């Protein structure tokens, strides 16, 4: 059984979290940028500098892996380790959202 060390990556930044969410399927850089904007309903935009840095870091930590390379575009997808980290992040966010919503009712 793998030791769960995903806590050391948490909390993820908003950009990193969205980038990982899009990588549930293999995508190359620019496709990730467009999809993040789409699924966040325009609240989050990821610039190429931010994205390249995130790719480098996530690949080094083996949270994503390169699956394809064509026309100088690399495609990445989440690894099992990456999925686990993302799942734990979402759980944390869910707790926070629930806390937030209960306070909003009192405002």
């Amino acid at each position, binding site marked *: 059984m793998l030791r769960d060390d995903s806590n050391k990556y948490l909390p993820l930044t908003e950009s990193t979290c969205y980038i990982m969410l899009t990588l549930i399927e293999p995508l190359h850089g620019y496709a990730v940028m467009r999809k993040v904007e789409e699924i966040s309903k325009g609240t989050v935009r*990821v610039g190429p500098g931010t994205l390249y840095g*995130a790719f480098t870091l996530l690949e080094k930590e083996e949270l994503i892996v390169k699956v394809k390379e064509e026309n100088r*575009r690399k495609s990445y997808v989440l690894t099992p380790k990456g999925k686990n980290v993302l799942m734990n992040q979402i759980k944390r966010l869910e707790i926070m959202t629930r806390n937030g919503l209960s306070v909003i009712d009192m405002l």
Partner: protein
Amino acid sequence: MAENTIRKIKWFWPWQDEQEEAWLRSMSQKGWHLSLVGLLGIYRFRAGEPRDYVYRLDYQTFPKKDKQEYQQLFRDAGWEYIGEMSALQYFRKEVKEEEPLEIFTDVESKIAKYKRILPFLWLFWIILIVVSPIGISIDNPYPWWGAIQAIQVFVLLIWLFFTYVIIKLMLRIRQLKRL
């Protein structure tokens, strides 16, 4: 040099990237578009129609193959690659409505950029410390002892320079973290 190009020498510290970007933009607005960056603050501009280009700088070192993919990603996002000066990567894009004008879209990745510069500065800083005490043995009546001393003063000055750059860069990172 062709008539329609000019060369300018200007010094920007590593933490002054935003000032450098603003200066390049103002040059383009005057019709001078950056065409090449050379060593140590030498910029070449080509004359053209005045245009509103924003310039953005990244700091990256990588093998040639990764570099092509890196440039492709920026091209896909609408950025034109201009060149590189000691690992500083220069990009530009014409200002249009609805076009994102930042390559770093959060504070964390901006801090990460400055942090990529630091290891190189530390490396020089340490090398200079190791090199500096050479020849300090006082009663050395070598005829070229004066020359050694002169070199030592020189090394010390460069070391102070690097210390200054490291401290200023770390302060800039702290300033960003407070945002």
